[in-house]
């Protein structure tokens, strides 16, 4: 059993509530309030993972969301497993099971560790350089690379948890509940703003809440007890909502933010059932106050990545908040005063400090004096040149820094230790600010980027704005709030501050070593194993842009987005390249700030709720009669109706034959229907269709083709003139919404003078199409009072009539080439009319058919389907549909484009019919068509667009588009397939009943 490093009770930890959890198969204990990291540290466990490239042993480095190393897999091999979870964020609960990632067979003995010793041959850009040649070898390399690389494992079972999305609108959003955020939230709420305060942690108060030191006082109270009172007060405001465990992921324009609220991840598994796990908050805030704090910087020196090396502030947090000592022989290494805060905290808790190594030579602040008073040994003007210990640090070597900080001088001193805290100063967490489009400026004195130009109504306050110390925060935040919220006073205008922190800092991006850089491993990006050496190599190889160096070395490209080391990478680049930091820019911070689960992003839109679907009024009948369905846009359309175990082919052949031999019935309700009214309706149709409409008599129907302004076919359908100024237009199923949109566009913007009104009535009507030689007998039984004689009711005409008492419109129009009728009836009567037709058709073997048979039947007649036989490059001339293009009309949409130099070319792809040499051979749709197979490269002439076996013609038929196809009638061409060639002959696209006898039969 390992040691217990719990030192002194902390009020944030409930020591009466013991929690057991498993890490890499071993059971440990922690307390309620612990994170996985703090509980592991309390058990003296630092080694938690292996690094990405060299598989070096890595330990916990931080105490927050910036953690690069301590990322674990939760609940491996279960449906709840989750990779890449930061041990520093996950709160322990009874039954938690975590395991290390990127190591095999175990974190203690990892085969991949050999990469560490191969590192001289694994430089920056190794993969780019090595696996580029020979190109076709990638397939062989890939298997091994994928096996040895990679972080966690994704789950293989469906996620059992519930996720949801929620919109929030507020006046003021405050991000971060540290001291600045608390002050901002209270001020906003007190002044009547509807305020939302969010923080990623489970508690409020940021790092101040555990700053229990006489060195920092507000109004003569120790800062944490002052803040505690403020927190108690803000909880009383009704107009202030507080959300903890809520991490803002993205800050978009117009103050639109996405946040993940974590609701159950801290609960034991058995308490999570039927609860929402995570919520994606979509926040629209009038004003945003960013108070995201700052991240402590590491220091960059040889072997700065060993388990046992942590940020100094993390050591302080583990001691103060969790009551955990990270080691028994602690050394701190710093270039600023922050490490002394840590030292004093440790001292107060009785945790041993061996030494403090400080880069600075001349230092003199109250904090340092306090440390010296406690007999802590301080090495001033020193730096660490190396560390030792493979799975846990056990020793460091230090040397004196030269005056200019470029070299080390003197002799080496060794100090043994089991924990090293490093502090390189602070980096404002400006990630969200820059995501929102904000521009940064560089502050030379302490080498930080701080917010400069705000793109929306927002401010950054506190240490994310570069005001790091308690006195800076207290003196700047109230004034900023007054200006931002346009108020006269705050509760914080006359606070008395005592702070013993001195701001002096000696910033050296890459600390010197007694070895040449090529022999060192100073890590800049811990997760991706990018070292200062790699960055220098990239610069030597000619990379200059920070974005290029980032991608080449993979610095900042891990799941932590390089929150710790990005600034050092910039610093090293600017020093090496001799450019100024401020001019170099930064890499782009992209959402999400911390990774989101897929579940959160998707919310409730899973399974049957993934997308909405539309059902026709007759849908239930199709389901009852075992139809297979096809998705057409959002519609579920009956595809075919298999009978007695038929496959699709057999069902379609049967349906197609029945429709031509006797009678077929189709649910055509999904076709788009647009009601067009107004005194200029005819003129409008003249302008939007290629053919003429003025002379269409009332009660007649006409097929129309609609083009885009570029002359390409856009949609088609039959339009019926219901009255002098009243038409009903049908569109394709998929095109209904876009056609209406396009027509509205022209009406509102180009032709506002036209008196025309458009209404979508697609959902208002059910459309039942009955076709075949017996269709007249069937429909006349359903509607006995109607005169169905050819004289009274010819092809392409319509009648208003009634079925029983129900009004309906009957059109005699055909998409199959058969004599057929379309009954349009108010949607809620659709199913009963359909059933009446089925009943009346019984004696004629009326056969319901789906979209597949419809496609086959129309192909026999050479009718096109827009979107299948056309794409956005087909004109009506290409389709050999010259007959529908009016020569007389002065203008219509797309007319002028029909004689552009490109559209009048003879060698455009044109629609033709194709017949196979072997009548049983059915072509594949999309297959390429060629003439000369010997030519190299083979010239592609076109492709097959529709292809079926026609049971009525007893042969295979196809439509295709071929360059210059119009003039190739009878020509033999070749369709090369994987294992064979198919010989075809170019034919007329109308395969059946060219004379249209059946329409009038």
């Amino acid at each position, binding site marked *: 059993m390992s040691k217990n490093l719990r030192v002194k009770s902390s009020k944030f930890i409930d020591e009466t509530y013991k929690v057991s959890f498993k890490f890499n198969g071993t059971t440990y204990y922690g307390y309620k309030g612990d994170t996985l990291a703090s509980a592991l540290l309390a058990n003296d466990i630092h080694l938690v993972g292996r690094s990405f490239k060299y598989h070096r042993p890595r330990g916990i480095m931080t105490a927050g969301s910036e953690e690069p190393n301590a990322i674990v897999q939760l609940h491996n091999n279960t449906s709840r497993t989750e990779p890449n979870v930061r041990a520093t964020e996950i709160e322990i609960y009874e039954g938690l099971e975590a395991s290390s990632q990127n190591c095999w067979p175990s974190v203690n003995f990892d085969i991949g560790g050999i990469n560490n010793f191969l590192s001289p041959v694994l430089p920056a850009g190794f993969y780019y350089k090595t696996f580029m040649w020979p190109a076709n070898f990638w397939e062989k390399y890939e298997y091994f690379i994928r096996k040895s690389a990679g972080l966690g494992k994704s789950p293989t079972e469906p996620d059992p948890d519930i996720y949801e999305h929620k919109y929030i609108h507020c006046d003021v959003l405050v991000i971060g509940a540290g001291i600045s955020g608390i002050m901002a939230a209270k001020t906003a709420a007190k002044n009547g703003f509807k305020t939302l305060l969010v923080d990623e942690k489970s508690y409020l108060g940021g790092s101040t809440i555990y700053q229990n030191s006489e060195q920092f006082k507000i109004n003569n109270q120790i800062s944490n007890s002052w803040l505690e009172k403020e927190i108690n007060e803000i909880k009383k405001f009704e107009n202030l909502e507080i959300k903890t465990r809520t991490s803002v992921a993205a800050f*978009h*324009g*117009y103050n*639109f933010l996405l946040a993940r609220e974590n609701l159950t991840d801290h609960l034991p598994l058995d308490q999570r059932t039927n609860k929402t796990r995570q919520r994606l908050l979509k926040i*629209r805030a009038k004003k945003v106050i960013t108070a995201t704090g700052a991240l402590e910087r590491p220091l960059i020196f040889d072997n700065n990545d060993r388990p046992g090396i942590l940020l100094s502030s993390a050591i302080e947090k583990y001691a103060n908040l969790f009551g955990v000592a990270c080691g028994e022989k602690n050394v701190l290494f710093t270039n600023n005063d922050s490490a002394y805060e840590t030292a004093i905290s440790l001292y107060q808790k009785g945790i041993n400090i061996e030494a403090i190594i400080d880069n600075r030579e001349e230092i003199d602040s109250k904090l340092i004096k306090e440390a010296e008073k406690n007999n802590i040994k301080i090495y001033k003007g020193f730096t660490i040149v190396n560390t030792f210990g493979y799975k846990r640090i056990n020793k460091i070597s230090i040397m004196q820094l030269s005056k200019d900080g470029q070299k080390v001088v003197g002799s080496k001193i060794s100090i043994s230790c089991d924990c090293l805290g490093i502090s390189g100063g602070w980096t404002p967490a400006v990630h969200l600010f820059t995501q929102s*489009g904000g521009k940064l400026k560089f502050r030379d004195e302490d080498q930080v980027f701080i917010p400069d130009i705000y*793109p929306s109504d927002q401010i950054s306050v506190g240490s994310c704005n570069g005001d790091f110390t308690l006195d800076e925060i207290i003196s700047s935040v109230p004034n900023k709030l007054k200006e931002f919220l346009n108020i006269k006073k705050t509760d914080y205008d006359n606070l008395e501050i005592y702070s013993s922190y001195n701001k002096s800092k000696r910033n050296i991006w890459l600390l010197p070593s007694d070895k040449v850089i090529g022999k060192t491993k100073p890590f800049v990006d811990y997760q991706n194993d990018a070292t200062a050496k790699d960055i220098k190599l990239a610069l030597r190889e000619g990379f200059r842009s920070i974005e290029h160096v980032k991608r080449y070395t993979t610095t900042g490209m891990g799941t932590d987005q390089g929150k710790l080391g990005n600034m050092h990478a910039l610093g090293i680049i600017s020093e090496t390249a001799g450019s100024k930091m401020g001019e170099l820019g930064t890499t782009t911070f992209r959402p999400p700030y911390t990774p989101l689960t897929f579940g959160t992003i998707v919310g409730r839109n899973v399974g049957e709720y993934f997308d909405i679907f539309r059902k026709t009024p007759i849908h239930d009948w199709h389901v009852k009669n075992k139809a297979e369905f096809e998705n057409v846009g959002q519609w579920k359309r009956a595809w075919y109706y298999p009978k007695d175990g038929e496959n699709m082919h057999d069902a379609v052949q049967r349906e197609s034959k029945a429709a031509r031999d006797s009678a077929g019935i189709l649910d055509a309700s999904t076709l788009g229907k647009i009601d067009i009214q107004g005194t200029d309706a005819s003129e409008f149709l003249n302008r939007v269709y290629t053919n003429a409409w003025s002379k269409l008599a009332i009660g007649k129907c006409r097929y129309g083709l609609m083009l885009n*302004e*570029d002359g390409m076919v856009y949609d088609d359908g039959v339009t019926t003139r219901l009255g002098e100024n009243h038409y009903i237009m049908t569109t394709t199923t998929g095109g209904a919404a876009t056609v209406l*949109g396009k027509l*509205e*566009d022209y009406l*509102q*913007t*180009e032709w*506002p003078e036209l008196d025309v009104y458009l209404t979508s009535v697609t959902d208002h009507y059910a459309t039942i199409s009955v076709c075949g030689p017996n269709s007249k007998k069937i429909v006349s039984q359903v509607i006995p009072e109607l005169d169905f004689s050819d004289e009274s009711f010819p092809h392409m005409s319509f009648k208003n009539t009634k079925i029983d008492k129900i009004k309906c419109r009957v059109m005699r129009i055909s998409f199959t080439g058969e004599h057929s009728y379309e009954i349009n009836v108010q949607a809620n009567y659709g199913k009963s009319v359909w059933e009446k037709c089925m009943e009346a058709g019984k004696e004629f073997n009326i056969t319901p058919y789906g979209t597949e048979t419809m496609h086959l039947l129309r192909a026999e007649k050479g009718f096109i389907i827009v979107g299948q036989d056309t794409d956005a490059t087909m004109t009506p001339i290409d389709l050999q549909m010259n007959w529908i293009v009016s020569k007389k009309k*002065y*203008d219509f949409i797309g*007319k*002028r*484009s029909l004689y*552009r*130099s490109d559209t009048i070319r003879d060698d455009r792809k044109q629609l033709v019919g194709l017949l196979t040499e072997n009548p049983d051979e059915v072509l594949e749709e999309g297959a390429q068509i060629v003439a000369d197979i010997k030519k190299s490269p083979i010239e592609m002439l076109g492709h097959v667009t529709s292809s079926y076996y026609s049971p009525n013609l007893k042969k295979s038929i196809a439509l295709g588009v071929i360059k210059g196809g119009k003039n190739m009638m009878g020509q033999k061409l070749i369709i090369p397939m994987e294992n064979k060639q198919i010989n075809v002959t170019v034919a007329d696209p109308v395969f059946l009943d060219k004379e249209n006898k059946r329409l009038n039969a």
Partner: protein
Amino acid sequence: MFVIKCPFCGEREQSEFKAGGEAHIIRPKQPTELSDDQWAEYLFMRKNIKGIQFERWVHTHGCRKWFNVVRDTSSDKIKAVYKMGEKPPSE
């Protein structure tokens, strides 16, 4: 995602709207009298400005009305919104 003030409905989320490209491109009254080049100019040529751009938008999931928007494409700030047929604001 920005917020657009529809001149008919008021402020709504961007997701309710669709963009319709550059504004104030008038369809020629006599297309047949134009040369290929003149027609191509109308048909294909659009500006893509970094900065102030005049655009058409439609409130697809609202009133279905088209209108004009003056937007700074570099910041997505909307400077003005006006109805079809109204004069564009100067500056």
